[in-house]
C-alpha cells in the first residue's frame, strides 16, 4: 500500500509513475462473510469501510453487479449540503457533512470536497419567509445557515439576473457556507481503496440473484459468481432497491424514477458557488474542469431506463438561463440519467427488513450523494449492532404503516412528486 501524498507523487514523476499499486484488489468471493453489503456504490463502500474501521468487522464483502461507483454515485450533480427543513433529515445530513469535511484525509484520497457554499435563491417575499424558516430550523439545531440580501448576492454571483422585471426576480437567498461539491467518482474509489486496505473484499461483476433464508433468517446470497454465505446482509442499491428486495419477497414503498443531469462545455470560472432555487427546479454549479453542471426535476414516472425526457432538460436549461442569462450560449456537451429510489415520503429508509439479518439502505430519492458518509456510518452501525444508530432511527421502514413519515416537501405518498 503506497500512501498518497505530494511527495510520493513527485517521486513517482521521476520513475514514470510506474510504481503505483492497484487502488483495490480484485479478490474472488470467499465462501462466507460475516457481513455482505450488496451494492458497490458510495453508500455500500462507505458502509463496508465503517464496518471495518469503527466496528472492527473486517470479514466483509461488497458485491457489485457492474463496476463500483457506476450507479447514482457516478451520475449525480455532486452537490453536498445538509440544509433540510425537517430535523430528522438535517441532523442525519449534517452528520454526513461533518464526515465530508475530513474525508480526503481520512481516506488518504482527495475527494475534492469543496465547501464553496450552497445557495438557495428566493424569488418573492413568500420564498424568503420559507427560506428563513428553513434557516431558523437549521440554526436552532446548530447548523450553518445565513440569509443573504440581493446586494450580497450581486457580489457573490455577479452573473445572476437581479433585475426586478425578471420572470423570477431574485429577492435574496439562504446560504449554507459549509455546503459545496465533491468529486463523485473519487468518493467511491476512495472508500473502496480504504476499505480494501482494511481487508474488505470488493467484488465487481457479481450480481446477487437471490437470498438464502433458513428459519426466517438470511444465511447468504446467490450470485452470478456462486452462493456466498453471510451472517448479515445489507442491501445498499438505491435505484434498484425494489428488484433486490423482491428477491426476498419484500415490497417496498419505493418506486424507481429517472433523474437527469447535464453539463456544458468547460469554460473559465463563472460561477463560484452552488446555486439552487426555492421555487424553480434547477441547480447550477461549475465543476473544477469548467463545465457548468445542471440538474432539474425528476421525470415523474417510473423507469429504470437511465434515459430521460428532453422537456425536463429544456426546463432546467430555461430556468438556469432565467437565473444566469449568460448561460444561454454555453453548450450542453453531455446529458445523462440516473435511476432514483423514490420513497413515499421523500426520505431514505435505513432499516431492518422483515427477514432476520436482512437490512435495507435505500429510498434516497435524488439526495443520496450528499449523505454518502453518514449513510455508510449509520448503516454500518445497524449492520454491526442490529440496532439503529440514533440519527437513523427515524428512517425505519415501519414509519409508513404507523404514519410517522418524514415528508420534507409535504407532497405525501406520490413518489413522483417528491
Amino acid at each position, binding site marked *: 500500500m503506497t500512501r498518497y501524498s505530494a511527495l510520493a507523487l513527485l517521486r513517482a514523476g521521476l520513475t514514470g509513475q510506474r510504481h503505483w499499486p492497484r487502488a483495490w484488489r480484485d479478490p474472488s468471493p470467499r465462501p462466507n462473510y460475516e457481513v455482505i453489503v450488496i451494492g458497490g456504490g458510495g453508500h455500500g463502500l462507505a458502509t463496508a469501510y465503517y464496518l471495518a474501521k469503527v466496528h472492527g468487522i473486517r470479514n466483509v464483502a461488497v458485491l457489485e453487479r457492474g463496476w463500483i461507483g457506476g450507479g447514482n454515485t457516478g451520475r449525480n450533480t455532486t452537490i453536498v449540503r445538509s440544509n433540510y427543513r425537517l430535523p430528522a433529515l438535517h441532523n442525519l445530513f449534517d452528520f454526513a457533512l461533518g464526515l465530508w469535511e475530513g474525508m*480526503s484525509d481520512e481516506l488518504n484520497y482527495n475527494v475534492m470536497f469543496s465547501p464553496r457554499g450552497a445557495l438557495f435563491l428566493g424569488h418573492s417575499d413568500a420564498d424568503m419567509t420559507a427560506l428563513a424558516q428553513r434557516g431558523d*430550523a437549521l440554526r*436552532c439545531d446548530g447548523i450553518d445557515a445565513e440569509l443573504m440580501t440581493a446586494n450580497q448576492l450581486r457580489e457573490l454571483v455577479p452573473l445572476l439576473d437581479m433585475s426586478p422585471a425578471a420572470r423570477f426576480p431574485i429577492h435574496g437567498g439562504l446560504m449554507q457556507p459549509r455546503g459545496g461539491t465533491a468529486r463523485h467518482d473519487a468518493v467511491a474509489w476512495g472508500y473502496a481503496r480504504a476499505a480494501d486496505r482494511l481487508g474488505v473484499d470488493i467484488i465487481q461483476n457479481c450480481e446477487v440473484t437471490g437470498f438464502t433464508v433458513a428459519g426466517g433468517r438470511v444465511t447468504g446470497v446467490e450470485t452470478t459468481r456462486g452462493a456466498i454465505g453471510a451472517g448479515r446482509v445489507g442491501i445498499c442499491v438505491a435505484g434498484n432497491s425494489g428488484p433486490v428486495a423482491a428477491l426476498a419477497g419484500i415490497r417496498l414503498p419505493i418506486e424507481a424514477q429517472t433523474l437527469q443531469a447535464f453539463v456544458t462545455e468547460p469554460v473559465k470560472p463563472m460561477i463560484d458557488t452552488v446555486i439552487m432555487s426555492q421555487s424553480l427546479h434547477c441547480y447550477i454549479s461549475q465543476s473544477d474542469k469548467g463545465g457548468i453542471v445542471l440538474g432539474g426535476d425528476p421525470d415523474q414516472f417510473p423507469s429504470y431506463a437511465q434515459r430521460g425526457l428532453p422537456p425536463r432538460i429544456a426546463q432546467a436549461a430555461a430556468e438556469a438561463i432565467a437565473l444566469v442569462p449568460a448561460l444561454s450560449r454555453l453548450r450542453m456537451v453531455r446529458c445523462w440519467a440516473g435511476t432514483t429510489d423514490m420513497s413515499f415520503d421523500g426520505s431514505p429508509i435505513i432499516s431492518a427488513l422483515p427477514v432476520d439479518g436482512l437490512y435495507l439502505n435505500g429510498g434516497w430519492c435524488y439526495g443520496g450523494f450528499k449523505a454518502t458518509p453518514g449513510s455508510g456510518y449509520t448503516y454500518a452501525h445497524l449492520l454491526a449492532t442490529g440496532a439503529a444508530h440514533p440519527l437513523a432511527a427515524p428512517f425505519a421502514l415501519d414509519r409508513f404503516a404507523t404514519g410517522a413519515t418524514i415528508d420534507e416537501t409535504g407532497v405525501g405518498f406520490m413518489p413522483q412528486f417528491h
Partner: protein
Amino acid sequence: MNGPGRIGRDETATLRFTFDGRSLCARPGDTLAAALLANGVGLVARSFKYHRPRGIMAAGVEEPNALVTVGEGGRTEPNTRATDVFVYEGMVARSQNRWPSLAFDLGAVNALAAPVLAAGFYYKTFFGPPARWMVYEKLIRRAAGLGKPPTLADPDRHQHRAAFCDVLVVGGGPAGLAAADDAARGGARVILVEQDRALGGCALRGDGEMPTSDAALRAAGVRILTRTTASGVWDHGFVTLAERLVEPGEAPPPGQPAQRLWHVRAERIVLATGAIERPVTFAGNDRPGVMLSQAVRTYIRRFDVLPGRRVVIATNNDDAYRTAEAVAAAGGEVVAILDSRPDFTEVARAAKERFRVHTNAFPHSTKGRSGRLRSIGADIWTERHSFDADLLAMSGGFTPVVHLHSQAGGKLDWRADIQAFVPGASAQAITSVGGAAGEVAPIGTNAVHLPHPKHSFVDFQNDVTAADIDLAWQEGYRSVEHLKRYTTLGMATDQGKTSNMAALARLASVAGVDIPQAGLTTFRAPFTPLALGALAGPDGGGHAAPRRRLALHDRHAALAPVWQPLGYWDRPRAYPAAGESLNDAAIREARAVRTSAGIIDVSTLAKFAVSGPDAAALLEMVCATGVAKLGVGRGRYTFMLRDDGMVMDDGTVWRLDETRWLLTSSTGGADRMEAHLSYVHRVLAPHLRVSVVAQQEHFAGIALAGPLAPTILAGLTGQAPPAHMGLAEASIAAVRVLILAASYSGERAFEIYAPGAIAGPVWDALDRATCAQGGCPYGLEALEFLRIEKGHVVIGAEADGRTTPHDLGLGRMLRKAGGYVGAQALGRPALSAPDRLQLVGLETAEASLPEGAMLVARAGAPVEGHVTSAAQRVLGQGGIALGLLAGGRARLGDRLIAASPTRGRHVAVTVTQPLFYDPEGERYRD
C-alpha cells in the same frame, strides 16, 4: 513556400473576419478552419492541460483541437470548432486558453510538469482541511476551462418547433440522399437533415456522386434541413434536431430566431451519419500540421486549400491513397506514404508507380517549431527514417457514427476487418446505411509499435496519452468506465469522437483481450454540443413560465398595486397610496374592511360546477366533512384529504339546487383539485351520474367584506343580501352575478361571481360603491392580516402536507362514518401521537413576530414548533400569529420564544387559541 495556403489565386475571398485581432479574408462557403488554413494560419489553439500548440486536425464536427471563441458580447460562443462554423462578414474569432498570446503561452510550462501531472494525479495530493483544497482548487479552476464564458444575456431568441414524419433521414451524403429519395418516391412524409451547410457529405471531398439533387428532393416534398444536427434520439422515434439559422456569433435578421430546436416524431429513422476517420497514435501526433487524411482531401477539393506543401501520408488502409492523388493534383508534393500493412495492396501497388510507398511503416514522432510541422520520424521495417514535411495526413481507419443508433437502445456488433463497432439489432425502427453501417475501408491490424506512449495522444483535447491509459490499468481502473473517468478520456467537448476506438485498442492491448471484451462506454446525447438557449427555446431569456392574467388585470394595473406572484398568477398584494409603504397600505386596507368595507379580487380560486343526481355522493367522497345534508341555497366550509389522511385542500361547497353544486378550493391547488375530482369520479366511482366542470376562469370573483358590505350590496342589487353562508343571484351593473355569502376576513362578506369576460363593470360598480362608503380595494397582504386574526388556515402554510384535520383542530368536522378519501389512513397510531404539531395561536406585546421562526422554550432549547403565519392586529396593538406546536392544544398559556437566528430576532410569545377576533362569529349576523 511552406505551410498551408489557398490553391491558386484567391480573388473570391471577399468576406472579412478577424482572428486574434488580425484581419483576414475568406471565401463565401469557407469554414473558419478552411479560411485560417487559406491564410496560412496553422497554430489555432492550445490544449486543455499541457497547453500544447494545436492546429486543425479534422474538417468536420469531430475536430478535437481547433476550438476558438466566436462572436462578441451576449453572442459570444466559446469552444466553437473552427471546422464547424462558416465565415460571415465581420466575424470575430479568438483563440483561447492561452496567456499572454497563442504563440507564446506561459501555460505551456505545464508540459514540463507532465511527468507529475499524469492521469488522476489530483486524487493523490492536495490533502489537508477543505479550506486548503479550496486554495488549490481556485488555481486549478483558473487553469482549467477552455474559452471565457459570455457575461451578457443572449440578445437572440431560439425557437422550438414540432414536426412529424414517416421517415427521418439523418445525413445528407450520398447514402442519405438515396434513402430520402427512396422514401419520398413511396409517398412518405420525409425529413432530411444535414449538419453541414451543404448536402453532399463525402461527395464534397470528391468521394462518390450525389444520387439526386437538393432541388429534386424538395420537388418530391422532402423537407430538407441543412445546418441541422440530429442531436439525440429518444424514446419511440422522438428525435431532437438543432438547426442553426445563423452562424455562431452572427446576428440573425430582426425578429428572427438564431437557433431552432426541432422535436421530431419519426415513424422510421434512417441513419446515414457516415464514419469518422481515426488518428494514428504516435509521439507528437497532436502537432499542428498533423491532420486526418480525409480532412486534407476536403480542404483541397471543397475549399481549394492545400493544408501543406510537403506531405507525408500515414495509413493502415487504402482510402488514404486518394489523399495522395488529391495532394498531387493540387500541386503538393507527396513525400512518402507510410502504410502500416506489411504487404502491398492493389491500390498501394498502383500508387507505387507515382509515389514513394513504404509498407510496414509507422510514424513514431514529429518535430516542429512555431506551430509548423518540420519533420516526421518513422520506423520502416527495421529502420528509422526521417522525412522533411509540413503536413502529415494520417488515417487510422474509420469509426462508423453509431451514436444515434446506440442512444436509441440499439446493440453494437464488432467488425474485426474495420476494427470498429457497427450497428447491430435496433431497439427502434432505425436502420443505418452507408458509412454508418460499416461500409468503410478495411484496415490493417498488425500490431502498432509505440515507443513513446507518454507523448502519444489518444484524446487530444483532454491531453490523455497512451501512458495515461496504461497507468489507469495499472492502478486497477480497469472497467472502461473507470478508465474514462480516471483519465477523463472521451469527456471533452468532442466526447471522444476521434479517440474512443484508439483508447479501447490501447486498453485491450494492455489487458491482453480483444477490443469487444474491453467494453464500450455509453453514447450520450447530444451528438454535438447544443446551446442551452436552444434547449430552452421560447422559455429562455427569463420566460420559463407563462404569466397568467387576471380577468380584472387592467383594473388593478390602473391602481398601480404591488403585485404578488402566486404560481403563474400575479395578484395585487396591496394598493399603496403615493409614498405609502406596503405594510402601511395593507393595514389601512385591512382596517377599512374591519370598519367599513373593502373589495378584493378572488378570481383565481378554483371553482367546480358539480351537477347531476349523484353530485352529493361524489362530493362526499372528495370532502371529509358532511355535505349531502346541506340545504338548497346554503354553503359550508369543507376540506379534502389525500389518501394518506393529510389535508390536501380546503374551500366551500354550495348547493345551488337539488342537483347542482358549486365547490371552491384554493388557487394554488386548482389543477391538483381538478385532477383529484376526476380521479375520484372516473377511477373510484365511475358509476356516478355526475358532471364536474372546472369554472375557475369562467367566473371572476370579487369579495366584498366589511360591516357595510350588506348595505353596499343591497344598494347595488336592489335586493336583500343573503344571510351568512347563504347564496343568491342578482344583477350588478346589468351583469348577472352569483352571490355567495362567505367570509374569510371575519366580517360579513360576499363573494360575487360574474363571467370573467364581462366582470369589469361589476368591479367598477363595487369599487365606486365601496369607496363611497369610505372603503377601498384590498390586496392579499390585508387579506392575510384578516384571516390570521380570524384563525383561518392556509394550504401551504398551516396545512403543509404533513398536517391532519386533527392537527388543525378540524377533527370534529370529519364525517364519523368515513367513506371519503383519506379516512382509512387517519387511524394510524403516529397520527394521534400526543406530541404531534398542532395548530395554535401566538401573541406578543411586540409589534410583530417573525413569520417562520422556531418555537423554543428558551434560547438553545430544542425546537418545539414554528410560526406558520404572522401578522399584526388589525385594530388592536401587538403581534399575532398562527403556529404549529408539539402537543399545542394542551399548552394554552405557555410562554415561548419565537426564535429567528437568521434574522436576529427573538420574540417572547404566549400560546393561545388560534382565533383572535370575534370568537363567537357575531359579526356574521346582520
